[in-house]
């Protein structure tokens, strides 16, 4: 669906963001794009959508150069930004303004999403809180039925029940011919939704693996102490004990802890390289 090949990008000669970066995004997945502040997550999303142009290398969506910003590409990609922008109109007016631009826009789904998020379509954007406007933007993004949904920090500004509703709605729309890319720091909010993890750090992709692949190689567990635990490759102390990661030698099923995985990847990139043969 999306292919970045040998991509180089810098904002200035001194500030290189990506060097020879390659990445393939496939359908049927919900990707979690993780990275520290300033790692280049938003820049990567902008390169994927043609908002930024690479200095060299290519960025294509369905084999279309994103730099062209062609209609065919724009009809299939929806980019929900962290700081959303919506015109100062009523929700129903916004729908009249933009829905026709998307050939498969699902008006019923939009209505249902608004209902789930308890948004009145006759409300003016101006009178809404940031969270409410985000809910409108999320509803619209899901209803466009675009094959690629790119969301930058989608749960920022959402209240606790809305985060659950968002997960439910996002899981509903995913199919084999569609993918969602979620760039986030709020890994706990989206842990149950993400099925593939991409970790970005210092111009490189340290990890690009499915949750299944990760859980086949690693076990995530809580230990009361680290004494006699020789196989622990990473741990973090918490009041509940040690959150530890060990190699999965005996095909044990465990629930992934994305925060621990991310911290481990950032601190031991070579170990991750060895474990996942990157």
């Amino acid at each position, binding site marked *: 669906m999306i292919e970045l090949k040998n991509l180089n990008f810098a904002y200035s000669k001194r500030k290189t963001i990506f060097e020879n970066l390659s990445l393939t995004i496939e359908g049927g997945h919900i990707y979690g794009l993780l990275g520290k502040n300033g790692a280049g997550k938003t820049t990567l999303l902008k390169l994927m959508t043609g908002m930024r142009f690479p200095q060299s290398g290519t960025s294509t969506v369905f084999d279309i150069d994103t730099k062209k910003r062609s209609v065919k590409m724009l009809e299939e990609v929806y980019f929900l930004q962290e*700081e959303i*922008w919506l015109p100062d109109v009523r929700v129903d*007016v916004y729908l*009249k303004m*933009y829905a026709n631009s998307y050939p498969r826009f699902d008006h019923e789904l939009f209505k249902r999403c608004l209902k789930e998020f308890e948004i009145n379509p006759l409300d003016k954007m101006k009178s809404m809180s940031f969270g409410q406007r985000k809910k409108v933007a999320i509803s619209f993004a899901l209803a466009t039925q675009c094959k690629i949904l790119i969301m930058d920090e989608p749960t920022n500004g959402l209240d606790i029940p809305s985060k659950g509703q968002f997960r439910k709605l996002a899981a509903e729309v995913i199919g084999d011919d569609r993918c969602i890319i979620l760039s986030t720091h709020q890994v706990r909010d989206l842990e149950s939704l993400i099925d593939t993890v991409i970790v970005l750090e210092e111009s490189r992709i340290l990890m690009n693996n499915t949750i299944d692949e990760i859980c086949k190689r690693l076990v995530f567990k809580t230990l009361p102490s680290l004494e006699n635990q020789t196989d622990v490759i990473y741990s973090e102390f918490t009041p509940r004990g040690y959150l530890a990661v060990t190699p999965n030698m005996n095909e044990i099923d465990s629930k992934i802890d994305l925060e621990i995985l991310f911290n481990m990847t950032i601190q031991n990139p070579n170990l991750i390289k060895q474990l996942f043969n990157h």
Partner: protein
Amino acid sequence: MFSFKRFSEQFKIIWMQNAQKQAIILIIISLLYVFFHFKMFNEGRVELYPTFSFWMGFLTVMLIMNSLSVFSVLLHQNSSIHYYMTPASIGEKYAAAWLYSTIFTFVLYVTVISFVHWVSMYLGNTITGRSLPMGFPKLAIIREAFYNIMYVQSLFLLGAVAFRKNPFWKTVLTLILLGIIIGLISAALIRWYILGSDAFNTSDITSYTWNLNVQSMDDLSLPRALGNFKTLITIVVTSIPFICWIAAYFRLKTREV
């Protein structure tokens, strides 16, 4: 491939975003118009009626405002991304913005003002028993005014797309700087072709003008070379709006967010 459906969708977006603002401005200006008419009929003085130049000045301001407003989405990163990500080609988006900020605004304002003027004059003449003339300007004058307004509009439309921050003031500043540069070049050319003396010696220009009793530039019999140059300048000056509109399109197409 240019799609008229997407183009009309883009035009609809611009219109729906600006309709309320335009309606308020048109209501205010119509009320002002009625007030001027009332004053004119009340005092029986036609000179109280605002001149055609005044209305053209107002229209110029409105077209500049709309040119800046139609691309105000580009002032912020979030709205820029929203704009670029909307499914339509840059050609369709630009054509809609261009049409809105040029012909559409001009026709809308001229139509509304003309209608209010006609109604006010008709009612004024009927109620007071006077027979003041309608005084509609000739079509040729409106057409010339349209060209002049488009000239200014094209510069500000380019400014709106080219500058990321404060497009109005940056456009004004650029025009002042360009004016100074063109003025200096013109002075150098005059020296080269006509005076053949030291550059920017204004006293020479004064004496030359005085001695030949030149009333205007048209009275000067220009050398053949300068005559050709004048033709070239005329072509360049005439094509400036088109150059600005085309440049704005390419700037919009290649702009990164």
